[in-house]
Structures are given as structure tokens and as C-alpha cells.
């Protein structure tokens, strides 16, 4: 324990606050798969529109469901959906970015034009196309947003690879006769983690905001699954009578996104300290 205590003291404030906020949210999300204070779908006519109370931390919604349990489940869905979105878009970003950045030429030109096109394409239309191919539900949100966010990663990874492809140690690797793929993924890739990590956290936040935006517009996670975006768009109808119904999911989104950006700021400062 002493060792962990020491480790904590050494960290900077941003890292700690960020860790606490995200840790709490992620734990709640994971817990929601096993246990929630109330069933997330059980309705009770008697308890409709109850304000926040000890029994219902965040109050109840128009069906009398406990908002706190639904927010917990919402966190679970949103965090998982967003992480999968980041995995897909980051993975695509690395693959395409590395190849276009390192080799350049016509391939680079074509792929960059495609990424520009995807980037300028309204994500709503792209989502609709994916829905019609894949059917609605979580996997379509994940896949369509994965495609939508890939271009930003491609651009970052590509510029890093362009920067490093003529660095001295890469020149030397070529002289040694190291194979092309090995140069790409063993020599150059490990050097772009710090820049990549920052864009991953930003990407994660954008994924959360986009997922909730999609649910807000009605194409996204299907009821009765609770996604924070869907809850927020439903709650808008009851602003007058039950403002807590809107504030709970809204503030939770802000809490998670803020937590992650503080965490990434903490890591960035730690990283800067080490170099």
C-alpha cells in the first residue's frame, strides 16, 4: 500500500481528479451489468415523476422508472459503444495512415481524397446507409461512427509518419536491411504513441458526444436499452415538470467527458515531465 500511496502523491492534480471521475463512472457502468438499485425497465405508475430523493437518487421518469439505474446502464452502453467506436476508427487510422504516410505516391493521393470525402459527408446520412445495410441497433452506431471518425485518425497518423519516415534512425533501419513492414510497425509506430494517445482521448469524447447526438435524433441505441443521448432527447419533453430527468443524463455525459479530458491532460503533463 505504501508503494501505491507514494505513486499517488507523485501524480499531478489533473491526473488524480480525472482518474477519480472516470474511475467512478466506469465502475458504475460495469456494476450496472450485474446489479442496479432498481430494474432499469420496471415501470410503476405510482412513482411517476418523483423528484430526486434518497430512494431514487436521480428521481424517476415518465414511466416511473428509476433514473439512477437507467443512467448507470446508460453509462455502460455509452462507454462500451464509444470505446468500440474508438477501437475501429483508431485501428483504421493507424493502418491507412501508416501506409499512406510512409509510401506516399498515388495511393496516398487517392486515399486522402476518399478520407476528405468521408470527412465532408454528413454523418447522419452515413448512419442511415449503415442502418439499412446492418439493421438498427448498437452495432450499426458503432460501425457508422467508426467510419465517420476514421479520417481524423488517418490524418494524424499520416502526418506523424511523414515526419518520421526520413528520420535518421529510420534511414539507418533501411541501411540495415530491415523489412518495410517491420520498419513501419516496429520502428516508427511506437514513437507516435504520445500524439496518438491525445487524439484517442479526444476521439473518445467526440464518440460519446456523437453517439448521444445520434440517439437524440432517434437513430441509435434501441429502447428499452438506456443510452444517455436517448434519455436526454426523451427528457426534453418534460423539462417543465421534471427537469431532473434531463439534467441527470446531460450532466453524466459532461462528467464522463470532463473526466477523460482531465485524465488525458494529466497524462500529457506526466509525459512532458518525463521527457
Amino acid at each position, binding site marked *: 500500500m505504501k508503494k501505491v500511496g507514494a505513486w499517488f502523491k507523485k501524480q499531478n492534480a489533473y491526473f488524480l481528479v480525472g482518474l477519480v471521475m472516470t474511475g467512478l463512472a466506469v465502475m458504475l457502468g460495469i456494476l450496472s451489468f450485474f446489479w442496479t438499485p432498481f430494474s432499469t425497465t420496471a415501470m410503476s405508475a405510482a412513482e411517476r415523476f418523483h423528484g430526486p430523493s434518497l430512494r431514487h437518487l436521480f428521481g424517476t421518469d415518465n414511466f416511473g422508472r428509476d433514473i439512477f439505474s437507467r443512467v448507470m446502464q446508460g453509462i455502460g452502453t455509452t462507454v462500451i459503444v464509444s470505446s468500440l467506436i474508438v477501437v475501429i476508427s483508431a485501428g483504421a487510422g493507424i493502418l491507412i495512415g501508416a501506409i499512406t504516410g510512409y509510401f506516399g505516391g498515388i495511393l496516398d493521393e487517392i486515399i486522402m481524397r476518399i478520407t476528405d470525402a468521408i470527412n465532408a459527408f454528413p454523418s447522419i446520412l452515413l448512419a442511415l446507409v449503415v442502418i439499412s445495410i446492418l439493421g438498427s441497433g448498437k452495432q450499426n452506431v458503432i460501425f457508422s461512427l467508426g467510419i465517420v471518425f476514421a479520417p481524423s485518425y488517418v490524418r494524424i497518423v499520416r502526418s506523424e509518419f511523414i515526419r518520421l519516415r526520413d528520420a535518421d534512425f529510420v534511414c539507418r533501419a533501411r541501411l540495415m536491411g530491415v523489412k518495410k513492414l517491420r520498419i513501419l510497425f516496429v520502428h516508427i509506430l511506437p514513437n507516435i504513441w504520445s500524439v496518438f494517445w491525445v487524439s484517442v482521448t479526444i476521439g473518445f469524447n467526440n464518440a460519446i458526444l456523437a453517439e448521444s447526438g445520434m440517439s437524440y435524433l432517434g437513430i441509435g441505441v434501441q429502447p428499452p436499452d438506456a443510452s444517455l443521448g436517448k434519455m436526454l432527447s426523451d427528457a426534453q*419533453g418534460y423539462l417543465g415538470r421534471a427537469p431532473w430527468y434531463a439534467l441527470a443524463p446531460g450532466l453524466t455525459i459532461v462528467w464522463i467527458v470532463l473526466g477523460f479530458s482531465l485524465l488525458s491532460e494529466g497524462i500529457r503533463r506526466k509525459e512532458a515531465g518525463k521527457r
Partner: protein
Amino acid sequence: MKKKFSITLMALLLVAALGGCAGGKSSGNESSTAPDATQGSQASVSGQGTEDPNGNKDSKYGGKVVVGVQQDIDSLDPHKATAAGTKEILFNIFEGLLKVNENGSLICAVASDYSVSEDGLTYTFTLRDNVKFHNGANVTAEDVKYSLERASGLLDGTVLVASLATLKSVDVIDEHTVQVTTGSANLELIYSFTTAIIPKGSGEAEGSNPIGTGPFSFVSYKPQEGLVVKKNPDYWQEGLPYLDEVNFKIVSGADSALLELKGHSIDLYSYLTDSQAAELANDYQILAAPSDALQAMFLNNAVAPFDNVKVRQAVCYAMDRDLANEFVTGGNGAIISAPMLPTLKDYYVDLNGTYGSGANIEKAKQLLAEAGYPNGIEFSLIVPSNYEAHVQTAEVLADQMQAAGINCKIELVEWNTWLEDVYKGRNYQASICAITSDMTPSYLMVRFQSDHKKNFINFSSAEYDEVYKKAEASMNLQEKANFYKQAEEIFVKEAGTAFIQDPPITIALNKNLAGYKFYPIYVQDMSTVYFNK
């Protein structure tokens, strides 16, 4: 996204061959303004003695009103408009030979009187003499002939109003009379003569603004913003309309409408959900009336597990309609079990008893076991995402029916996807939505014939088809009603689909506005609305 399906214009009363039309004005009873108006009864606000129009200007005349509308206008051409939301507004600009009043009965409009021949093949209309178009020109027989020929397809071959397709010819007898002959006799054809009368040639003239004979005349239309109409000073009904200008403002969705209502930038808005109505209770008058639509969990009879009648019956038993009514429509909806509207009293038989309006879990489980599904069924329930009421009903019922082992996975789809996959493609297991109706029994029941192209639930029962054919053909009112009732009983016995309720229309009306009349079919009649200062 459009709230309800579009409907053709039909009247309630099957008037005998020589029926005349009721007088120009009719009075209705005072409506109750309490939020939960009693369901089923015809609620309308109207009625005051005739007032000398240009007499005292103080009491009711003048003022501007903003009406919140959910869906954009799909066409300014009365004959081509299909969306109910568009017809609802054009009702104020255009009028046909006949017109519907708030009780659903036909009254004379451009025509002052009409008569139908013995064999039901020729209709003769005499024109009212002081009716003027908005551009000041008098309505002539030529205009009527042009309008009816254009709508029926006699003019250029393309049928615009389907129900007029059977017309053979439209002849001008003299200045004031027009005679119309039809190919086949059909008692319900009379209601198609509410089709709009427009000046001769205005349909084809380049860039011409809509000209009709209605209480309000067209001012301007901006897509996505709204349609503005102003008072028609020389409207043939004395004393109407009261308002100077009406702006039908397009609102982007239920949620932002609520914000705008709270900000008092809209005076009248319908399609409120129950919870929204409760939100606005103290700023607005909240009025409710049945919407005359049938909300149901439609079961695809051609697809497992609903190809088995016992399973369908089990669903009907397990469904707790009262719960849905209470949660979604605040108890204002009318529980139904058969494909018929309670308001069509002559044809309605109360079959709620067969499956009960509460949840009968044991019966449902027993039926499922008999049908070979001892541990329940699992199916996907498709719901159009733009209808908040249907989505909420789906969530309530999905949770409630689990007790009976009926597990449904809700799948929200975009409106056009619903039209393509469910309505036209028929590849779905179950779907919650509503089919609107008009005042004719045939409109609802015709679709359940096995071979009918609108039978999207693939209901097929020879017995039903046979009885329906008889009902359609019979010319005797009493006999026709009995046949319809028999058809309803067969459908309910076969549990073709699990009906839920006839949801109410709830509207929010500015506190100092009065004179709003509810119509059984999609009409926003602004001519009777006035400001009581």
C-alpha cells in the same frame, strides 16, 4: 414526419338518394375545457348567434393567430395533396361543391343544392349564386366542370382524386347547374364531391398562387417556415371568418414545439402527448377529443409465431390496454378490440369483453402452451421512431407482457423504412402503429380482405371475405350494418391483430381564443376561431 396516415374525405351519414343538405350553419354544444375531456363524446367549442359582420368590430373580429404544424406542406395543389397535414390546412383555402361540418355530416358549400338520380348514376348540382373566388371572379359552371374533370382524370387522363375515377362526364346544363354522370352506383361517391373547386385553367397556369373559395386566401408559403393566409372579406358564409390572418408555422418536432409553447410564440398546437399537455396545463386551454384512429400491435399473420391463431389470441389476452392508456395517453384514449371506431355507433359492437382490457396472464400462458410454445415466444416489434406515443406504448407493453412469457425486442426504425419494410414489404413479425380512418365503415374493414393490397397483416379468412362482400354490396342501411358487425366478430375471434386504443388528439389553445371546432377527420377549421378580448 407525418403523424397520421392520409385519408380520403368521407361523411358519416349515408343520406338516402334524395337527401338535401343541412342549412348553412349549425350549432353545437359547448365543449368542456377540462384537460381530461370525457372520451368518446364529440367535443367542440363553437356556437353563437349570427352577428352582423360589419356591425360592431369590437367583440370578435381581427387578430392574428399562429398555428403550430408538425409537417411541411407537400403540395399547394388541392387535387394533388396527399398528406393529411396538408389537407388539414388547405381546408381553409379551398372548398368543394359540398363540405363537411364538425359532426362529419355533409353541408352545401359552392353548390346550394344537389339531387341524385334514381339509379344513383347522375348527380345534379345547383350553384350558390354569391360565391366568389379569392381573385374576385364569380364561380361559374365552367370552373366546376374544369375542376371535376381535372380531379377525375377526364381532363388529361391522370386520375388525381382516386374516388372520382368512376366519373363518366361533367356537363354544364346552364349558368347555375352542373350534371355529373358516373359509371357505377356507389352510395359513398357523394362524399368525393368535397373536392376543391378552382378557377378554370388555374391548375396549368405558370406560377399561379392557389385560388379557392374558402374563408381564407393564400398570402405566402416558405418551405420549412410556414404558410400564411388572410381573411377572405367576401366569403359566402356571412360573419365568417373572424381572424384577420393565420400563420401555419412549421415546427421541427414535438420537443422544440414544447419550448416554443412555453415561450408563447404559438397560439394553437395539436398532437400534444399527455405529458406535454400536463406541462402546459396552466398556460393554455387543453382540449381533447378522440382522434378516430386505431392504435394496435399489428401481427403479421403470415409469419411465425403469429401464423398460429392461438398465439395471436394469447397476445390479445396478455395485453394490458388500460396500463398503456394510463401511461401513454393519460386515460384519455378509448379502449378498442375490433377494427371499428366507437364513434361509428351504427356499426360498432363492443367486443372489448372477448379479451378484456386488463392483462389475463394465465389464459395467455395456457394458450401459448397449447400452441406449442410452453416457455413463451420471442419476436421483434418494429415501431416508427417519429411517433413518440407508439414508442412509449411499445416500451410499456414490452415490459408488461414479459409476465406472460411474451418477450418482444423493440426495434425503432425511420419512417420511410417502416413504410417500405412493414407496410409495403410486409417483412416484419409485429409492429405498433395506428391506422387512421374516416367516417366510413368500409375504409377500415376493406383492408382485411385476404386479397386486398392494403392487407399488410396478411389476415386471411374466407368467412370474413364473404361477409364483407355482402356488407359492401347491400344497399339497405340496417342490413349493411349487421354484415359489418358480423365481419368484426369474425376478425376478433380470429384475433387478426391486437387492438389497443383510439388515442385522443390533445390540443393546446391560447387562453383568450375560442370557437375552435374538432372535426372527426383531419381539418383545422380556423374560420370559427375568434379572440374574446
